[in-house]
C-alpha cells in the first residue's frame, strides 16, 4: 500500500498532539485534585456527586442545628439547676421552719422578707434571657418576660420545636408555666401571712399551700430536667450517627468526583505513561525523518 508522505507526517504530528493532550488531561485532573471535570467524564458519578453533596449539606445542616439546640438545652438546664437549688434547699427549709411554731412574730417577719427575696430570685430565673436577650421560658413570645411581677404567666402556649435530624423533631423550648405554674402566687400568700404574724387568719393554710406548692414545683422541675437530659442524650446519639454519616458521605463525594488518593495515584501513573507515549511518538517522528531517499 502506498503511504503518502503528507499523510505520514500528518499522522505523526496528530499522534504527538494526541499524546500531548492526553498528558495535559491527566495534569488538569491532577491540579484540580479530582478526575470528574465534566459530567460526561462519568455521568453516573456526576449524578451521585450532586446527590451526595446535597446529602452532605443536609447532614451538616442538622449537625449545626443540633449543636445550637444543645447550647439552648444546656442553658435551660443550667437555669433549672439554679431554680432547683433555691426550691429544694433554701425555700423548702424556710417554709418548714416557719411552720414549727418556734419563731416570734419578728422572726417570722424576717423570714417573710427572706422568702420575698428568694421569690424575686426565682422570678428572675423564670425570666432568664439568652445571650441574644430572648426570654427563654416564654414560648414563642420571646420578647416578653415569662412572668409579670405578680406572677402571672405572660408567655406563649407552644414550645419551640426543631428538626434535628432527618425526620426527627425535638422540642427545644420550655414553657415557663409548665415549670413554675402558680408558685409565685403561693409564695406571695406565704410572705403576706408571715408578715401578718402567726395569729393572723389563714396563717397555717398559707404555709401549707406554700409547702405543697413547692413540693409540686420540685416535682415539675425534676420532670423537666429529666426531659432535658433525655433530649441532650438523644442529641448525643444523633451526633454520633450523624458524624459517621458525614464521614461516609464525604468519602462518597470524593469517590464520585474521583478525589480519593487511589485516584491520584492512578493519575500520576497515567501522566507518566502518556509522557512515555509522547516520547515514543517523537522517536518515531525522528526516525521517519531519517528514512528518506532524498537524504542519500
Amino acid at each position, binding site marked *: *500500500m*502506498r*503511504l*503518502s*508522505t*503528507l*499523510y505520514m507526517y500528518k499522522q505523526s504530528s496528530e499522534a504527538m498532539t494526541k499524546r500531548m493532550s492526553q498528558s495535559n488531561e491527566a495534569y488538569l485532573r491532577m491540579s484540580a485534585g479530582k478526575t*470528574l*471535570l*465534566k*459530567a*460526561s*467524564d*462519568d*455521568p*453516573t458519578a*456526576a*449524578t*451521585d*456527586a*450532586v*446527590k451526595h*453533596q*446535597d446529602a452532605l*449539606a*443536609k447532614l*451538616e*445542616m*442538622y449537625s*449545626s*442545628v443540633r449543636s*445550637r*439546640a444543645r447550647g*439552648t438545652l444546656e442553658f435551660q438546664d443550667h437555669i433549672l439547676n439554679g431554680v432547683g437549688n433555691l426550691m429544694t434547699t433554701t425555700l423548702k427549709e424556710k417554709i418548714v421552719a416557719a411552720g414549727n411554731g418556734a419563731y416570734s412574730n419578728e422572726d417570722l417577719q424576717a423570714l417573710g422578707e427572706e422568702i420575698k427575696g428568694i421569690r424575686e430570685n426565682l422570678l428572675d430565673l423564670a425570666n432568664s434571657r439568652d445571650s*441574644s436577650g*430572648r426570654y427563654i421560658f*416564654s*414560648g*414563642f*413570645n*420571646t*420578647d416578653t418576660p415569662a412572668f409579670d411581677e405578680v406572677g402571672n404567666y405572660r408567655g*406563649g*402556649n*407552644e414550645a*419551640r*420545636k*426543631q*428538626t434535628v435530624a*432527618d425526620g426527627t*423533631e425535638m422540642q*427545644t*423550648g420550655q414553657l415557663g408555666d409548665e415549670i413554675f405554674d402558680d408558685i409565685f402566687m403561693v409564695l406571695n400568700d406565704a410572705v403576706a401571712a408571715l408578715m401578718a404574724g402567726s395569729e393572723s387568719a389563714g396563717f397555717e393554710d398559707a404555709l401549707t399551700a406554700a409547702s405543697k406548692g413547692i413540693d409540686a414545683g420540685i416535682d415539675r422541675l425534676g420532670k423537666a430536667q429529666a426531659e432535658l437530659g433525655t433530649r441532650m442524650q438523644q442529641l448525643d446519639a444523633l451526633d454520633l450517627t450523624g458524624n459517621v454519616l458525614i464521614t461516609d458521605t464525604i468519602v462518597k*463525594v470524593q469517590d*464520585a*468526583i474521583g478525589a480519593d488518593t487511589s485516584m491520584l495515584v492512578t493519575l500520576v501513573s497515567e501522566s507518566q505513561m502518556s509522557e512515555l507515549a509522547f516520547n515514543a511518538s517523537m522517536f518515531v517522528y525522528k526516525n521517519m525523518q531519517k528514512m*528518506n*531517499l*532524498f537524504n542519500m
Partner: protein
Amino acid sequence: MNNLFNLARNGISVAQAAIRVTGDNLTNGMSGNYSRRSLIIGELGGMSTAQGFYGYGARASGVERAYDAFANNQLRDSLSGYASFTGRMEQLADIDNMLADEADNVSVSLGKLFKDMATLSGDPADGPARAAVFTSLDVLANRYNASAKRLSGLEKSTNTQIERSAKEINSYTEQLAQLNKQLERLQGNGAPPADLLDQRDALLEGLSEQLGITVTEDQISGRVSVTLSDGRPLVSGGTAYKLETSPSDADPNKMIVSYVDANGKASPLDENAITKGRLGGLFKFRNEDLTVARQDLDQMAFMMAHRMNEQHGEGLTPGGDPGGDLFSLPDIHAIANAKNKGGDALDQIAVTNFKEVKSENYDISFDGANWVVKGADGRIVPLDPAAPAGTLKFDGIEITLPNPSTAVAGDKFTLNPMAGAAEGISREIANAQEFAASGKKDPGPGNNTNLEEMLKIQSEALIGNNTLSEAYASLAGKIGESAREVKSYATSAEGDLRTKYDDKQALSGVNMDEEYINLDMFRQYYNGSAQLLKTATAMFDALLAIR
C-alpha cells in the same frame, strides 16, 4: 537512420514529460487536495516489413489522475458523520462543564438556603440569621439566572453557527456551480483539467463537512450534481440552490434554515431529517440537548418558586402580616406566530394550580370558531369545560382571551408556561423582616412553625418523584450521558474518517520516495534516449567520414 533520430527524439520528449509530471507530484504533494498524476507511456506504432516489425518508439498517451469516485464518496460520508458529532459536541461541552461543578451549582445554593433557614429556626427573631436567609434567597435566584443565561448564550451561539454553516454551504454550492460551468466549456478538449477536478473534490469535501449530501458525477466531463438527503437539488449543472436563514415564525429566538427552490420559494428544512454534517449536529444539539437542559432548569425554578411562595403565604412576618411571595417569576406569555393575520396577544395567563403545570411547548391555534390546544407531541389537550367564558383552562393554567378578539382562522401561538422561569426568577421580598417564619397559630417572635414547614420542602418530591436537588442531579446525569455518547460516537467516527482518508490517500496521495525513484528512473530513461541520439549522430558522422 531517420527512424533512429525519431526514436531518440520521442524518447527524450516522453522522458521530459514524465519528469515534468513527477515534478508536479513532488511540488504539489504536500497539498491535501492534490491527486497524484502519472504519465501513461504507450507505443507509437511501427512499420511491418518483410524483415519484421520495427517500432516508431514511445509516446505519452495521457496523464492519469489517481482517483476513485467510490473512495471519495466514502470519505465525504465519513466527513459528514464526523462533523455532525463534533458540531454537537462543541456546543454540548459547555453545558457538560457547567453541570459537573459539584461545589457551585443550583443544588449547592439550595442547600445553603435551607441551612440558613435551619439556623434561623433556632432563633427566628435573630437579625443576622434573618439577613443570612435573605441573602441566600438572592444568591439562589442569581444561581438560576446565571445557569439559564449560559444556556441562552448557547442558543444564540448555536444560531450564529447555523447561519455560518448555511453561508458556507451557499458558498460551496455557488463555487461548484461555477466549476461545473468551466468543466462544461472545456468539455471536448480531451480529459478534463486535473486541477479543476482537484478543486472540485476539495469543494465537495468542504460541503459534506457542513451537510450530508449525495453526489452524482459525470465521468466524462467531471461535472457533478449535488442533492440534499431528501433528493432536492443543491447543485445542478451551472445552477446552485440557496439555503436561507431566518428567525422561526413560531419562535423568534430560533434561527431556522429554509431551502429556496427554482421558483424562489423558501420552505423550512425538516430539522429531524438533517442528521449529518455540522448543520445536522447543531440542529440536534438545539432540539434535544439544549431543550432538555432548559426545560429541566425552568421546571426546577418554576416549581420551587411556586411551592415556596405557597408555604411562605401560610406564615406571618414579624410585623404580623401574612407572608408575601418569596420569589417572583416572569409573566407567562404565548408567542404569536409571525404569520398570524389577527392581532391577538395571549399574555393574560395565570397559574391556577402550579402542581399540574407542565414544562412543554404547547401549540395553541384558532380554527375560526374554537381555540385548540395541542401538546408538543401533537395530542389534543382537553380544556376544562367548567372554565369561565372567554378563558382557556388546561394543565394548571388559565388563559384569558382578548376581548374583543381579532383572531383569524389559522392563527397560531406557541406557549411554554415555564419558559424563562430560571432566567427570570428573582427574590421578591424586600427585606429580611418580610420573611414569614412564624405560623398563624400562636404567633410570636420566637414562632418557627412555618419555617419548619418550609424546611420540609427540601425533602419533598416536587418534580415527579424527585426532590429539587435530585432533579438537578438527574439533569447533570442526562446531559453527561448525552455528552459521553456523542464523544464516543465522535471517536469511532474519527476512526472511520481516518480509514477513509487513508484509503483515499493510498490511491491519490504522493509518496516522496516513490517520486524520487520515478525521478531517477526517468532520468535514466532520458539518458538512454540521449545516448540513442548520440549513437545515431555517431553513425551518421561515420558515414560522412567515408570519402
